[in-house]
């Protein structure tokens, strides 16, 4: 059996291990992120949410997922 290679990425400051061939869409789906309520940055660049299934992730990528919370 072929072993799936894992890579490490950072999501909201936390290190996560994901399958090497994962795209951004799969990772967000696994985290149950409600896409219509968030914005996403990949390596400090804002990602068009419509294109997430075309974005492949690489080792050491940094993802930030933000939403609105209470504030003044």
């Amino acid at each position, binding site marked *: 059996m072929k072993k799936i290679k894992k890579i490490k990425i950072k*999501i*909201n*400051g*936390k290190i996560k291990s994901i399958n090497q061939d994962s795209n951004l869409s799969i990772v967000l789906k696994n*985290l*149950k*992120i*409600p896409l*219509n*309520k*968030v*914005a*996403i*940055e990949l390596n*400090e660049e*804002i990602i068009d*949410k419509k294109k997430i299934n075309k974005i492949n992730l690489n080792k050491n990528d940094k993802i*930030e*997922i*933000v*939403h*609105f*919370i*209470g*504030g*003044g």
Partner: protein
Amino acid sequence: MVNLKKDSLIIANKKFNSRLIVGTGKYKSMSECAKAIKMSGAEIVTVAVRRVNISDKNKPLLMDYIDPKKITYLPNTAGCFNSKEALRTLRLAREIGGWKLVKLEVLGDKKNLFPDMIETLKSTEVLAKEGFKVMVYCNDDPLMAKRLENSGADAIMPLAAPIGSGLGIQNKINIQIIRKQTKLPLIIDAGLGQASDATIAMELGCDGVLVNTAIAKAKKPFEMALAFKNAVIAGRQSYNSGRIDKILMGNPSSPSKGII
């Protein structure tokens, strides 16, 4: 009969009936926050942009309690200390769902929370060029307010006193000078402590007030929300009614003729 509906607050071509904007921070729970907003009658609420908690996926979301289709979300850059952070925050906010109306707040000092006006001015220019409608938190400095206006701000939001201080309006003269010089919406942001502070702001000719701590941290937030709602309406009506001139000596209310 005065038609209050006609006396709307217009910000970046959008019409609002309420002149009270409330913050959504510092409440005990999201349901308390939602109820306080309802009591306040506010149609605009400020919100912060923060990381999603990826380890607790069942954590309630603000949008589940306050419907952004019914209440206008005003993304705020609270907690940003330079232009770069503020721009990043607001670009992300816009990406969440097309928010163009935003509140810019670039702080300069962690203790007094006064705005860094140089960074604020720089950010205003960039945001206006990028098509944002920017409501700008600023010092109560008429010259800076003018520069913000010239840089493309959509609303001027001077502080009454330091954020969360509850001190009320400290510099009425400056607020009145800013009022005289600008046709932009002038909204007092930060430092109010009680309902009457909002009335004073409105009587000075401000177009609205933004309140967070004074409601959220009151012993009875719902009652205080209602008090602020009424105070803003009272202040606006008082301003529109044209106050009497101040005189030094007494002037009797009853006729002196016919005294027995």
